[in-house]
């Protein structure tokens, strides 16, 4: 199954804000994108004079190339956990390893140069051109001017701001959404195997945020990085995460795929956190592509392309007063249909197994 790929591809097409054609993506794709697994090993952070640990015995692994979302209410320790990876916050106990090597084994500045970092405030340097911003870490690593320019051009293309003019512009000349694209490009400058994203789209208006999320997922499909992504928005977590780690009071409460998390919350806190409409949220995890379609009966029904989410398909049925939706393929021809019962059946209490979004299933379609 290629659900994940298809889903994001369709998402990208749907938004249509800036469109990168297949050819363009070929041209800018990295030859061999690197990614490294990361592991938290009983990591704790205690502040002196505070009884409760900010992060307590946190242990989990993020396989290479996966997006792991850390989520939880304010003060749950998610940002602290993130910042301990590049040692912006020193850990009290335990260890974090990247590709098996402890983050404490390398000098802090050196470590940070090899980890992409994107945060809500973006933090572009207002006095540097976009090219110099993107070139900050490459310059520290001694890249030549020509190589930096080439890389900056390539990355701007990748984040959808490809234009020669943009290289020489200053951050203040761009909108918030564009600045965050540049922020992502800067974080990827030296092709780091790991990226840390701290509420990267948190300060951006909802419509732009949605587009940035879609584009980032498309980008991630192109350039697989291991990503730790902090958010407090459960919808964003479901959309972005291969796995979601829910935290509370410094502890990891549940780590699971979005689907399992919605289908089987570990406890009341998680159930509360994901929301009473978790059934409907779960429908957004799938598109019509991901389920077995009934054969098309040839009747006239409302139609939806195969990339539509089940939630949107359900919505279409309800608004059209229909109990079936015809599913159309790429050329617009009917390839099957889906019924209200079928969708309802998808929402049984038990998780539907790992097949839908397990990482090994995510290889791009040939």
């Amino acid at each position, binding site marked *: 199954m290629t659900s994940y790929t298809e889903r994001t591809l369709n998402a990208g097409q749907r938004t249509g804000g800036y469109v990168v054609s297949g050819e363009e993506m070929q041209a800018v794709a990295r030859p061999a994108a690197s990614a490294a697994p990361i592991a938290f090993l009983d990591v704790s952070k205690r502040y002196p004079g505070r009884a409760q640990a900010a992060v307590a015995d946190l242990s989990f692994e993020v396989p290479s190339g996966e997006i792991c979302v850390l989520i939880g209410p304010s003060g749950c320790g998610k940002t602290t956990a993130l910042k301990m990876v*590049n040692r*912006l916050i020193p850990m009290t106990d335990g260890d974090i390893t990247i590709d098996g090597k402890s983050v404490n084994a390398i000098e*802090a*500045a*050196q*470590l*940070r*140069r*090899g980890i992409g*970092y994107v*945060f809500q*405030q*973006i*933090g*572009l*340097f*207002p*006095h*540097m051109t976009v090219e110099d911003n993107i070139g*900050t*870490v490459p310059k*520290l690593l001694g890249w030549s001017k020509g190589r930096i320019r080439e890389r900056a051009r390539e990355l701007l293309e990748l984040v959808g701001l490809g234009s020669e003019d943009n290289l020489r*512009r*200053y951050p*203040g*000349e*761009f*909108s918030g959404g564009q600045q965050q694209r540049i922020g992502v490009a*800067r974080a990827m400058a030296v092709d780091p195997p790991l990226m840390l994203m701290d509420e990267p789209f948190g300060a951006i208006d909802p419509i732009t945020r949605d587009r940035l999320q879609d584009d980032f997922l498309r980008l991630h499909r192109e350039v697989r990085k291991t990503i730790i992504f902090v958010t407090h928005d459960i919808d964003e977590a479901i959309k972005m995460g291969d796995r979601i780690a829910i935290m509370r009071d410094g502890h990891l409460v549940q780590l699971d795929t979005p689907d399992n998390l919605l289908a089987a919350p570990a406890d009341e806190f998680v159930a509360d956190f994901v929301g009473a409409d978790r059934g409907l949220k779960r429908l957004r995890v799938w598109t019509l592509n991901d389920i077995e379609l009934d054969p098309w009966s040839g009747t006239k029904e409302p139609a939806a392309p195969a990339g539509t989410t089940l939630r949107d398909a359900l919505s279409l049925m309800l608004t059209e007063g229909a109990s079936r939706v015809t599913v159309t393929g790429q050329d617009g021809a009917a390839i099957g249909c889906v019924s209200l019962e079928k969708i309802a059946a998808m929402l049984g209490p038990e998780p539907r197994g790992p097949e839908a979004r397990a990482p090994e299933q995510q290889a791009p379609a040939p």
Partner: protein
Amino acid sequence: MSVLLPSGGSPSPSPSPVIPGFGGGGSQTCVAKNGQFCGSWFVDNFGSRFAPRLVEHIELTAIAIGVGMVIAMAAALYAHRHGWFETPFSLFAAFFYTVPALAFFELMVQVTGINRFTAEIALVSYTLLILFRNTLAGLRAVPPDALEAAQAMGLTRSQTLLRVELPLALPPIMAGLRIATVTTISLATVAAYIGAGGLGEPIFDGIQTGFKTEFIAAGALAIVLALAADALLVVAQRLLTPWAHRRRA
């Protein structure tokens, strides 16, 4: 107390004596009448009487600003890292800033003698408050998100200072530099009182002899110099901080 009114001793090679006689040339009538401003006398005597003083004035100012900037920058950087240092240094600088200039010069003469060095000590002291305050304000106004980004990207402390903090603090630093420069150019005229040269010399001379053209011309030159220096710094600031003037349309 030694009376140091200048005039004399000026090593001016000019042959034409000023009062009595008021020099010569075609401007004789105007000079003889001691008119408000004798343009042709000024033109005739610019090279011999004013140009050397103008150069001295520029030197006095440049040295004072240069040394003042170095001291103020060092102090501001220290105060930026160690907050406690701000108040004592501000008090120190404010003390010098408020001492009346003539009294200060006279006082310093007793310590360091009648020379340019004494004048520079006084002039530097006057620049410190403005330069220190503005530099420190500039460093503190650097957006915290830029600093977080710098740290998270693996810039060391000195790299952060040189590549992020100082460039971003440049607009307030340049603003301070402009005020300090204009102030120093004006103040440096008083330095002639202790024999340090500069445009103050023809001013004192003109006042003493009552020859209006001389002190009016020297005063005007000081004003022109101040305006030119300010304009130059504005241009420099524009060139150094192109990002500050470019905004999204």
